[in-house]
């Protein structure tokens, strides 16, 4: 089963004071908790969080729910908090668009773009 088991790796770093989470693999109902746990380390009120999804090969509604929940938690501490997503895979862009979440997050093609003020 290991060959079929979805895998997700998430790491959290920072760039000039902005937290940057990098995810790779599949974010689904079985793995989304790993993303939730990592993003939980970002304090409420953080003005900007970058989540790099460029190496994510699958993203379902559960993963989207984690991202929305993270944004809401950050905004509980500061209304103008935002989550910037780095997305390069067309299917990930598509799922953000069909759910209307492309308007909720800022979507960028690179981490550099996402970090720009």
């Amino acid at each position: 089963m290991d060959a079929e088991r979805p895998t997700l790796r998430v790491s959290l770093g920072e760039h000039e004071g902005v937290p940057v989470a990098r995810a790779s693999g599949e974010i689904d109902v079985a793995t989304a908790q790993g993303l939730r746990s990592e993003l939980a380390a970002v304090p409420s009120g953080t003005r900007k969080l970058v989540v790099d999804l460029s190496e994510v090969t699958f993203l379902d509604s559960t993963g989207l729910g984690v991202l929305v929940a993270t944004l809401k938690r950050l905004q509980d501490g500061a209304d103008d908090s935002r989550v910037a997503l780095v997305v390069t895979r067309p299917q990930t862009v598509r799922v953000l668009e069909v759910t209307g979440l492309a308007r909720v997050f800022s979507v960028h093609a690179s981490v550099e773009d996402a970090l720009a003020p």
Partner: protein
Amino acid sequence: MSTDPPSPLAHPARRGVGGPGSDVEISMSADPEMHVLARLTASAYASRFDFDLDDIEDLRLAVGELCIACSAGATAASRLTLRFAYHLSSLRVECTVTAVASGVDDDAGNPLLGGLSPGELSRRILAELVDAYRVEPAAAGVRRGSIEMRRRAAGS
């Protein structure tokens, strides 16, 4: 007059034209870790019928959402069964999950999702990606759902 045995390529399941002979059914635990098998099967099945890569990706995501929706209230004893069928350029996936707990409501607005329910996100995805979908309320411990996706004509 000799009668050659029918070519195995004449079988509908091998010709890629569909019909009852090409149906596939898989059954597994409803554990979320197993959903990846459902998605892999969906991809492989659609590729047999010349769905293009974008459609296969859409189907993979849609089947994952169907499994999530049908598994609301699933227990350790729950079994998830998927039946794939292709006929007249339309691929249909039926999902059945047994031993689901009653009264589980995935439509409850989750404050962590800004009032958006997990079911609403799933429905938005399914409504956009497939031609038809249906998820029934659980009845007698069983929840059923289905999706249908038509193969687009080449060049459309």
